[in-house]
């Protein structure tokens, strides 16, 4: 059936139907923003302004902060969080969570160490590292998406399991003698820009996740199923399949983070990246992703990751104790969720006042149907 035919079909109905709009609105009440205003005043934009403000303040108040060296060191520090935050964003948007990411990175690292020690080719070592991450992710995905178990509980279990396997694999050894060319590559910079070479790969991954989430049918489906899996099923979204692949992606990207970690620090150990999961989740939530699912964006999360990274680095450069840093991180996190509800309360109060002005408290009804 063609589009035009369809139009004709419904049009008559529309014209003959009631046209009374029962949805009255108040005068001079701010409407939902549209177009550019929505983008420029949105949650993501605010995160980006905050990031820029932080950078500017740091440049002014902390000597030497304004330098390409900062860019290099800062980015090298945030790469693992930034990487893992990508699939984590998608997973949290679907209303699930993955706490096992850091353990997968640790497992990858441990396995790389053992294989490399045993004399395997480095290419094979890297490939197997990635494969084990993907398998670990698939295991999570199977339990969460296929069996339908609650992800918070499942991934607390696999958090222990994967870290435990890392210990089983490498024990208390640490493997350090990775090929120097390779480890050097992982800390190398692009010319004089100070930007680490590996950022190119990271950027590709970030853009890929951004496009998937924001510009594909799959991404649209993720938001829908984040709010209501049942309604999502009724529009043909493959709920289990979508979630399964997200966990696989999470496992794969966590493995990449594990590889990066191993080669950047040139050290494969069972405890690599331990505790990173909470840092990633903190950054993702700060970036505006709702822990209940359905809300969030990649630009916001990138800004969130960089904001924490920048504050982190600036405070260290200013030799401010890490004590302050964790207090700041915690406060930011709380502020990021509390601030909107305070704003809401303020808005509601203003609204109430306006309403009282517009709706006389006791007006004779007398209205009779004519």
């Amino acid at each position: 059936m063609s589009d035009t035919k369809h139009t004709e079909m419904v049009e008559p109905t529309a014209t003959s139907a009631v046209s009374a709009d029962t949805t009255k609105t108040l005068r001079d009440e701010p409407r939902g923003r549209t177009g550019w205003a929505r983008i420029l005043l949105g949650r993501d934009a605010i995160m980006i302004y905050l990031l820029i403000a932080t950078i500017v303040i740091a440049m002014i108040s902390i000597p030497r902060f304004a330098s390409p060296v900062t860019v290099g060191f800062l980015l090298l520090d945030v790469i693992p969080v930034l990487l893992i935050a990508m699939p984590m964003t998608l997973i949290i948007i679907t209303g699930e969570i993955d706490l096992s990411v850091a353990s997968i990175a640790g497992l990858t690292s441990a396995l790389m160490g053992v294989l490399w020690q045993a004399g395997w080719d480095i290419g094979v070592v890297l490939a197997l590292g990635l494969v084990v991450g993907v398998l670990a992710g698939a295991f999570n995905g199977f339990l969460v998406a296929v069996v339908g178990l609650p992800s918070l509980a499942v991934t607390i279990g696999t958090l222990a399991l994967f870290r435990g396997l890392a210990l089983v694999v490498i024990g208390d050894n640490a493997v350090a003698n990775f090929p120097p060319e390779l480890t050097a590559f992982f800390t190398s910079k692009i010319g004089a820009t100070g930007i680490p070479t590996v950022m190119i790969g990271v950027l590709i991954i970030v853009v890929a996740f951004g496009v998937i989430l924001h510009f594909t049918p799959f991404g649209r489906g993720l938001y829908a199923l984040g709010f209501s899996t049942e309604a999502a099923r009724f529009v043909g979204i493959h709920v289990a399949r979508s979630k399964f692949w997200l966990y696989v992606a999470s496992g794969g990207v966590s493995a990449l983070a594990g590889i990066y970690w191993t080669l950047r620090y040139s050290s494969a150990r069972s405890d690599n990246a331990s505790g990173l999961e909470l840092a990633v989740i903190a950054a993702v939530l700060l970036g505006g992703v709702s822990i209940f699912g359905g809300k969030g964006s990649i630009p916001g999360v990138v800004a969130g990751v960089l904001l924490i990274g920048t504050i982190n680095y600036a405070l260290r450069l200013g030799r401010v104790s890490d004590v302050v840093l964790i207090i700041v991180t915690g406060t930011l996190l709380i502020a990021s969720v509390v601030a909107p509800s305070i704003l809401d309360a303020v808005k509601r109060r203003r609204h109430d006042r306006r309403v009282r002005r517009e709706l006389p408290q006791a007006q004779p009804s007398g209205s009779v149907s004519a």
Partner: protein
Amino acid sequence: GGGSESGGGSGTEGDQTITFIPKQLNNPYTDVVLGGGEEGAEAAGFASSAVVGPLDASASSQVSFINAETQAGTNVIVIAANDPDAVCSALEEARTGGAKIVAFDSDTNPDCRDVFISQVVAKEVALIQVELISEQIGGAGEIAILSATANATNQNEWIKFMEEELASNPDYADIELVAKVYGDDDDTKSFQEAQGLMQAYPNLKGIISPTTVGIAATARYLSTSEYKGQVALTGLGLPNEMRPFVKDGTVTEFALWDPAQLGYVAAFAGKALADGDLTGEVGETFEAGDLGEREIGEGGIVIVGPPTVFNAENIDDYDF
């Protein structure tokens, strides 16, 4: 002094800076070491000294502190490495920027530092502990080791020497090392590891814990259990922490060096390096303030002093 060719924030002699990066902040042993370090830094003539470091003793967490110091143009970085290799590339970068690197307490990979200030000769520490435990258990029986983290450089080196000594020295032929466990320098974990040892090895006669957190936690467990007085305990501990356990008989003797001296000497070594008076070659010497002249030994290692053995008689003479 010679012109140090620092890149980033080159310091003439008058405005040199030094930064200490311990394994972990807010740890009592570390605080004593750092106290000595800051005193040394002042005495050696640094314009300013700072202490930065992570709140957790994880392998890679020190790297971003090194990076920040590199960028800040610090002249001397004194570090106790959580992982000998993980900090390496960052230290290399710092050196490229002109900084001098002094490792203390726990060594880095020798390639990425100028000197290592060691408490004592590693082997000597190991032997003393074996000797103490052997005395306490009467030269025969099962013993176990309760260490810090599985990757701790210094602990692992001592353990290696202990194992070698137990295997080779005929005096210890009747002593059997049955287990090595790790308390991760965490009070709770060490406590439970000690407890697990008792159950898993009913015939256990003694425990060596070459880490201050581990020995204190183990002592606390023993003193509150039926094993008090049955199982001997020795290792490396802080006198202030161990005093009650020595007094109540849980522990007879344990050892340690003076941690403050470690920091103190490290500061002077850093100063000599920064001034160009020292390059890190074997046989070079430098003046370490009140502690006199020190020499760089094999592998670029400077030994601070012999360990002290503490027991009920002498423990009240020490306050750290």
